[in-house]
C-alpha cells in the first residue's frame, strides 16, 4: 500500500510556503489521492492499476505547485527566512577562521532581519546618518578640492606671489616695474619673476564686438609655469621688449567659441579696437586657469594674453600696478627666499625710499595665499559637520543600547548555550555597521546632489570652484567615515551586550542592575549630545549675527534699481582726453534722455567693480603755508562724470557734486571723502582747500576741493577703507568708464536701448561687466551668506537629533520606572509630582549638557573669530539666549514621557514586569 504522503512530498515542491502549511497541503492531497484510489478499486480496477492511474492523476506537478503557492500567498515565508535557511543548510566548513567568516553572511542576514522588524527606528537611523555623512562629504569635497589639492601646474609648491608692503601693519600691495626688475637683477634663489597686469580690449572678429578680459604679462610667464600649449607656442623670450611685434595667446575657450577651434589659428591676424592687428602665437591648454590670490585683484578668467611691453628701468618706481608671480629654484625654501627678499628691500630702501623706511617685499606660496581667506570658513564648516556626525553616532549608540536592553535575556540564554562573547559582539557591531554603510551610501548621494545644487549658488570668485567634486578621494574618505561612524555607534552597545551577567540577566531582564547601568550610560550619551548641540547652535547664531551685521553696513550709496556696465575706448581712435570725454558725455546725455531713466553717471570704477584703479600719490598743502613741504598721502583716486553722487544717491556732506561745467576749460576741482577731510583738515572745512595730483619732481597741478562726501564702501565690506579722492572726468578722462544708470523701470529693460545708443555712436564698441549694482553688492556677501545658511542647517540638524535623543532617554527611564511610579501613586503622590520629577530629570541632564557645552564653546571660541563681524566670539547674550532656548526645548521633549508617567495606573504598574 503506497504511502501517499511520501508520494506527494516527493513530487510537489513548495519552497515558498511555511513548513506547517506545506505539511497540511501534502496531507490533504495525499488524502484525496487515497480516496480516488479507493474509488478506482471499487470500480473494479486492481490495486496496482488503481495506483498507476492515481499517480498520473496529477500530470503537471510543477504547474500545480505554482498554482498552490500563488493561491496560498498569506502563508508564504518571508524571503529573508528562505535565504537564511538556504545558508544554514549549507555544509559547515572547518572550524576556526573560516567558520568565523562564514558566519558573516549569517550575521548580516540576522542584522537585516532585526532592522526590518523595527522599520521606524531603522529609517530614522539611516536618515540621521545620511544627513550627517552627507554633510561631511559635501564639506570635505570642498576642503579637498580647495585646500588640499595642489594647483594643477608642475611643481606648484615652488610658485608664489611677491608684494610690496609699506609697514608691518599695513596691507600688502602690488609692485612697480622697477621693483620687479630689481628683484630680477639681485635675486639668487628665484628661478624667475613674472609680471601680471590686466585690462580690456574689444575683439572685432568672429561676431559682434566683444569685450575681452586681457592679461598683460611678461614673456616668461608660461615657461615659468611649465605649461604646454594646446596649439602653436607661447611667447618668444623677447616678446615683452618694447617694439617687438605683438603676439597674442588665446584662452582655450575663446579659441573654441569665437574662432570655432580653428586648427590654423597660429599666425592668423586678429583685429581689435586698438592699433594694428595682432598675430596669434598659440592657444592655452583646455581648462587652464591662472590661480592667484583674490587680493591681487587679478581676474579669474582671462580671454587673451599679451606680452607686457615696457622698459622696466624707465618707468616710475612709485607706480605700483604689477602682480608678481615668482618661482623658487629647486631646493630653495620660502624662508630662505624671504630672507633674501628682505635683504634686497633693505638695500633699496637706502637709495629709493627714504620716507617709507619700512618697505618690504613679503612673499607667499601661491596655494596658501590663494586659499588664505576661505580656509578658516571651510575648516569651521568641516568641524561643524563633524560635530553633527558625532551627535548622530551618539544618538544611534543610545538607541542600540536601549534595544539591547530588551534583548538582555536573549543574549543571556545564548551565552548560556555557548555563544562566544565575540560572536554576540560581532552581531551587534555588524548591525550598526550595516546601518552606517546604508546611511553612508545615502549620504554620498545626498552630498552629490547637494554639491551640484550649491555650486550654482557659490560665489563665483571662490578659488578653485571647479575642483569641488565627489572624486575618488572624497568617496574613500566618506566610506571610511561611515565605517568609523558605524563602529563608534555600535561599540558601546556591543560591549554591553556581551558583558551581561548571565544569571542576573535571566532573573531580572531589562529591569535589573544592568538596567540602571544602562540608564547611566544613556544619560552620559545624552548629556554629550546636548553639549555638542549647544556648541553648534552658538556657532551658528554668532555667524548669523555677523552676516546680519554685514547687511547693515552703511554703503554710502543706494544700489537698488541701478544698471551698471563699462565702455572702454581704444586709444587709437580716441587718442586724447578731449575725444574720450566727448564720447562719455554724449553717451551720458543720450542715456539720460531715454524713457525710464532717472539719472545716469559714471566713474572709472564703480563699487566692487572688477578692476581696481591705481591709487596715485597726492599732495596737499598744510594750511596756507606755501613754503611748507607738501606731504604725500596715498588715496584711491578716480575720475567721475557729472552727477555721479546724485546718481548713486550719496548724500553730499559739504559743497557740491560734479557738474557739466567742470571741464578742462574751467577751474581744476576735486571732491574728497570725510575720512580724508577730517585727517587732513581736522579743525576746518575742507572746502576751498587745495590738493594736487601727480608725483615729485613734476610740477604738481593743484585742484580746489569743492565737495565732501561720505566714505564709500568700494572694495571690501569689512576691511579698512582708504581715503577717496574724485576729480571730474572732464579734467582728465580715463580710457574706460563704468556707467551707473538709475531707472524707474526694471533696469534690465534698458540694456538693449543702451546698446543701441552705444552702437549708434561707435559700432566697434562693446559693453562689458553688465550687472545690476544690487547683485554686485550682494555677491560680495555671498560667502558669508553661504556660511550662515550652512551653519544654521548643521545646527538645526544637530539640535533635532539631540532632542530626539533626550526624548528617547527620558521615555526609556519612564518605562523602567513604571513600577516605582505606580508605587508613588499608591503612596499618595499626585500627577503633578510625577510630572515635575520626570521633567526635572530631563532638565538636569540638559543643564549638565549645557554647562559642558558652554565650557567647550568658550574654549574653542577663538577659532570662530576670523569669521565674525561686529559680534564677539564670547558674546554673552548669544550664549545665554541659546542656552535658555535649548533648556526650553529639552523640557518640551520631556513633556510627552512625563505625561505618560503621570497617567500610569498604579495597579497595572505594580504588576508590571
Amino acid at each position: 500500500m503506497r504511502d501517499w504522503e511520501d508520494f506527494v512530498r516527493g513530487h510537489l515542491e513548495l519552497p515558498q510556503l511555511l513548513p506547517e502549511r506545506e505539511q497540511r497541503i501534502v496531507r490533504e492531497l495525499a488524502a484525496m489521492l487515497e480516496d480516488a484510489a479507493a474509488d478506482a478499486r471499487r470500480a473494479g480496477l486492481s490495486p496496482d492499476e488503481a495506483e498507476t492511474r492515481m499517480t498520473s492523476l496529477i500530470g503537471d506537478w510543477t504547474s500545480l505547485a505554482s498554482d498552490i503557492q500563488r493561491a496560498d500567498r498569506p502563508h508564504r515565508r518571508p524571503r529573508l527566512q528562505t535565504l537564511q535557511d538556504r545558508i544554514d543548510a549549507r555544509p559547515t566548513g572547518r572550524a576556526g577562521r573560516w567558520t568565523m567568516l562564514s558566519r558573516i553572511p549569517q550575521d548580516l542576514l540576522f542584522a537585516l532581519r532585526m532592522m526590518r522588524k523595527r522599520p521606524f527606528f531603522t529609517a530614522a537611523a539611516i536618515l540621521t546618518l545620511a544627513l550627517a555623512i552627507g554633510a561631511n562629504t559635501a564639506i570635505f569635497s570642498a576642503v579637498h578640492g580647495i585646500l588640499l589639492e595642489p594647483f594643477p601646474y608642475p611643481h606648484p609648491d615652488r610658485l608664489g606671489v611677491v608684494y610690496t608692503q609699506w609697514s608691518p601693519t599695513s596691507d600688502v600691495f602690488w609692485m612697480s616695474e622697477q621693483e620687479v626688475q630689481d628683484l630680477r637683477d639681485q635675486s639668487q634663489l628665484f628661478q624667475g619673476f613674472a609680471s601680471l597686469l590686466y585690462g580690456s580690449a574689444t575683439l572685432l572678429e568672429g561676431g559682434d564686438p566683444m569685450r575681452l578680459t586681457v592679461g598683460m604679462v611678461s614673456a616668461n610667464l608660461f615657461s615659468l609655469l611649465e605649461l604646454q600649449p594646446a596649439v602653436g607656442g607661447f611667447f618668444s623670450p623677447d616678446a615683452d621688449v618694447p617694439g617687438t611685434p605683438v603676439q597674442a595667446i588665446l584662452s582655450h575657450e575663446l579659441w573654441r567659441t569665437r574662432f570655432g577651434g580653428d586648427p590654423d589659428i597660429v599666425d592668423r591676424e586678429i583685429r581689435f579696437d586698438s592699433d594694428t592687428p595682432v598675430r596669434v602665437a598659440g592657444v592655452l591648454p583646455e581648462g587652464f586657469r591662472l590661480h592667484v590670490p583674490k587680493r591681487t585683484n587679478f581676474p579669474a578668467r582671462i580671454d587673451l594674453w599679451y606680452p607686457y611691453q615696457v622698459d622696466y628701468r624707465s618707468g616710475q618706481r612709485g607706480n605700483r600696478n604689477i602682480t608678481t608671480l615668482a618661482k623658487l629654484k629647486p631646493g630653495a625654501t620660502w624662508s630662505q627666499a624671504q630672507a633674501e627678499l628682505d635683504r634686497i628691500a633693505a638695500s633699496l630702501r637706502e637709495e629709493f625710499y627714504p620716507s617709507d623706511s619700512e618697505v618690504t617685499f613679503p612673499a607667499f606660496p601661491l596655494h596658501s595665499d590663494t586659499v588664505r581667506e576661505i580656509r578658516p570658513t571651510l575648516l569651521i564648516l568641516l568641524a561643524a559637520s563633524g560635530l553633527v556626525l558625532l551627535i548622530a553616532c551618539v544618538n544611534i549608540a543610545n538607541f542600540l543600547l536601549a534595544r539591547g536592553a530588551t534583548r538582555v535575556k536573549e543574549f543571556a540564554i545564548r551565552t548560556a548555550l555557548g555563544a562566544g562573547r565575540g560572536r554576540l559582539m560581532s552581531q551587534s557591531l555588524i548591525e550598526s555597521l550595516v546601518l552606517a554603510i546604508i546611511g553612508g551610501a545615502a549620504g554620498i548621494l545626498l552630498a552629490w546632489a547637494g554639491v551640484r545644487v550649491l555650486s550654482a549658488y557659490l560665489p563665483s570668485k571662490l578659488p578653485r570652484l571647479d575642483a569641488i567634486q565627489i572624486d575618488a578621494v572624497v568617496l574613500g574618505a566618506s566610506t571610511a567615515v561611515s565605517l568609523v561612524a558605524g563602529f563608534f555607534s555600535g561599540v558601546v552597545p556591543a560591549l554591553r551586550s556581551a558583558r551581561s551577567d548571565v544569571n542576573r540577566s535571566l532573573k531580572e531582564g531589562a529591569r535589573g542592575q544592568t538596567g540602571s547601568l544602562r540608564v547611566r550610560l544613556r544619560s552620559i550619551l545624552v548629556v554629550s549630545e546636548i553639549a555638542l548641540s549647544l556648541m553648534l547652535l552658538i556657532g551658528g547664531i554668532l555667524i548669523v549675527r555677523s552676516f546680519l551685521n554685514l547687511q547693515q553696513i552703511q554703503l554710502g550709496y543706494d544700489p537698488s534699481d541701478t544698471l551698471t556696465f563699462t565702455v572702454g575706448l581704444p586709444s587709437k581712435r580716441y587718442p586724447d582726453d578731449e575725444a574720450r570725454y566727448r564720447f562719455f558725455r554724449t553717451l551720458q546725455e543720450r542715456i539720460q534722455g531715454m524713457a525710464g531713466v532717472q539719472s545716469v553717471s559714471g566713474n572709472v570704477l564703480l563699487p566692487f567693480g572688477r578692476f581696481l584703479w591705481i591709487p596715485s600719490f597726492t599732495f596737499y598743502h598744510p594750511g596756507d603755508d606755501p613754503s611748507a613741504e607738501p606731504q604725500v598721502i596715498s588715496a584711491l583716486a578716480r575720475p567721475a562724470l557729472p552727477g555721479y553722487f546724485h546718481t548713486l544717491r550719496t548724500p553730499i556732506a559739504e559743497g557740491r557734486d560734479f557738474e557739466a561745467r567742470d571741464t578742462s576749460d574751467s577751474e581744476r576741482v576735486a571732491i574728497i571723502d570725510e575720512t580724508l577731510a577730517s585727517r587732513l583738515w581736522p579743525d576746518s572745512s575742507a572746502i576751498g582747500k587745495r590738493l594736487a595730483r601727480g608725483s615729485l619732481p613734476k610740477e604738481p597741478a593743484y585742484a580746489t576741493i569743492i565737495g565732501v562726501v561720505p566714505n564709500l564702501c568700494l572694495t571690501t565690506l569689512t576691511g579698512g577703507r582708504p581715503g577717496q579722492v574724485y576729480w571730474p572726468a572732464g579734467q582728465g578722462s580715463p580710457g574706460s568708464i563704468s556707467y551707473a544708470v538709475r531707472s524707474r523701470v526694471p533696469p534690465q529693460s534698458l540694456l538693449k536701448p543702451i546698446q543701441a545708443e552705444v552702437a549708434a555712436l561707435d559700432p566697434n564698441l562693446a559693453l562689458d561687466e553688465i550687472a545690476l549694482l544690487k547683485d554686485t553688492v550682494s555677491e560680495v556677501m555671498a560667502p558669508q551668506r553661504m556660511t550662515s545658511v550652512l551653519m544654521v542647517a548643521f545646527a538645526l540638524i544637530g539640535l533635532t537629533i539631540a532632542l530626539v535623543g533626550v526624548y528617547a532617554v527620558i521615555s526609556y527611564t519612564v518605562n523602567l520606572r513604571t513600577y516605582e511610579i505606580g508605587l508613588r501613586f499608591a503612596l499618595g503622590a499626585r500627577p503633578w509630582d510625577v510630572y515635575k520629577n520626570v521633567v526635572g530629570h530631563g532638565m538636569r541632564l540638559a543643564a549638565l549638557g549645557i554647562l559642558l557645552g558652554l565650557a567647550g564653546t568658550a574654549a574653542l571660541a577663538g577659532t570662530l573669530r576670523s569669521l565674525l563681524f561686529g559680534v564677539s566670539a564670547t558674546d554673552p547674550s548669544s550664549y545665554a539666549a541659546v542656552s535658555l532656548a535649548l533648556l526650553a526645548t529639552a523640557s518640551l521633549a520631556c513633556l510627552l514621557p512625563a505625561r505618560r508617567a503621570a497617567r500610569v495606573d498604579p495597579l497595572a504598574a505594580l504588576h508590571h514586569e
Partner: protein
Amino acid sequence: MFSSELKKGSMEMLILSLLEARPRHGYELGKLIETRSGGKLKFALPSLYPALLRLEKRGLIKGRWVEEPGKRSRCFYRLTAEGLRVLGVKRETWKEYVAAVDRILGAPNA
C-alpha cells in the same frame, strides 16, 4: 465537453453551492460535481485544489481537519457567512447572465 473558460468561471460558484448544504472534503466535492452534472462537468484535481485554497484565502470557506475512526483524517470545508453572501450574489449574476443570453439567442434576427 464545455470549454475551459466556461468551466473556470463557474467553478467557484459550484463549489460554494455544494458546500451550502453541509461541509465536505475536497475529493467529495470533485466527485459530486461530476455525478450531479451527469458526467458533463469534470474538474481535475490540479484545478480543483488550488480553487479551494483561493476560496479559503478569501475567507469564503473554512477548512477543518476531522478524524474519522479507522480512516485517514480529512480536511472538511464549510461555507462562511461571507461565502454564503457571495454565493447569493453569484447566483443572481448567473441567472441574469443566462437570461440575457437567452433573449439574444431566442430573438428573431432583427
